[in-house]
């Protein structure tokens, strides 16, 4: 059976969360178990809601040059995914 490419595969090398994150029904931010986790609650109370502006925050590109998130995420649909090596 063919598998789809998870956008976030890099972040979860071998981690249990990889499987959990891809379970059907987990897309609304529910973590382990039936209800929202503390992480879900923190996320949904902190992160701008639907229709609100993306945070005006400066990060860097892979050369270390400044990049403004709001600027790069304006003008087209944009997907932003957090991740790391572990």
């Amino acid at each position: 059976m063919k598998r789809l490419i998870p956008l976030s595969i890099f972040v979860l090398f071998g981690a249990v969360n990889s499987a959990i994150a891809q379970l059907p029904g987990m897309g609304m931010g529910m973590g382990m178990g039936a209800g929202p986790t503390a992480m879900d609650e923190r996320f949904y109370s902190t992160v701008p809601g639907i229709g609100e502006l993306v945070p005006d925050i400066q990060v860097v590109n892979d050369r270390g040059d400044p990049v403004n998130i709001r600027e790069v995420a304006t003008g087209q649909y944009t997907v932003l995914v957090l991740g790391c090596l572990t």
Partner: protein
Amino acid sequence: MQRDFAPRGVDFYYIYKPLAHPEYNNYVTPFTLEERLMHVAESKRRLGSGITWLADPMHNPWHEAMARTPNSELVIDPEGRVAARRTWSDPEALRADLERLVGPVERRTMIEDLDLPTQPPPPTVAKGVVPRVEMPPTMAGIEVEPVIEEGGVPFYVKLRAEGDESLRTTGNGKMYVGFHLDPLYRVHWNNEAGPVKFSLTASSGSTVTPAGGEGPALDEPADADPREFLVDVSMSDMTQPLDLDVFYFACDDALTFCIPVNQSYRVYLQRDNHGRTIRTGADNVPTAGRIPPG
């Protein structure tokens, strides 16, 4: 996903953040932006994806704005407003979002359609030579500030410090001192050159016992195991740091250099909210005693 929706005008970015689980595949927390960008390069190497990479600066403003989640995901509309958000990246839910926003694709890209040159983590010399310490209960990462000297050599070996709940809340308790090789520098412990040595200095009225230590003498000529110690700390002023000085030989795996290194840290008893938890692979086991991220 990118291959399907980029032609429809959707941009994709990964944003690199602090390690969720230091030690996994031997990766350790970077100390500088340059080292974080080395992690980005390593991620590119390992994943082989063509998605654009950005990196959070070392004070982690994006990670904070995302409530310190490890793998959250936002979809932003052309006006810069949030169109979808979720705590954990979810490919199926993201695809449904994008189909709703820009329309479905005729044929979904499958993993077999791509040629992703994924690579394994860097190899290391012998591991499992030095036994891991047995962690006391309630241990969690505490703030470590490397003293970075302009023009100095990299921190080939990086300190991870943890404290038990008593230490973090009262200033009296157990502290873990772990020296971990950074695999991105391709170095090892040269046991014929001499062991790592460290000393801890507390402010007046505070004590650390023992106030230092050194790694074991080993028959194995080289290894890549962390050098770990437990000390008892009693701090009269929790706002003050402990000063840690460490000496070691940094020897690269290609055998092009083996140099003595002196480096220093300030260790604070406050919880490192970006330090996250240890989740180990099969070759380094101690998870007991560590508590979940706050």
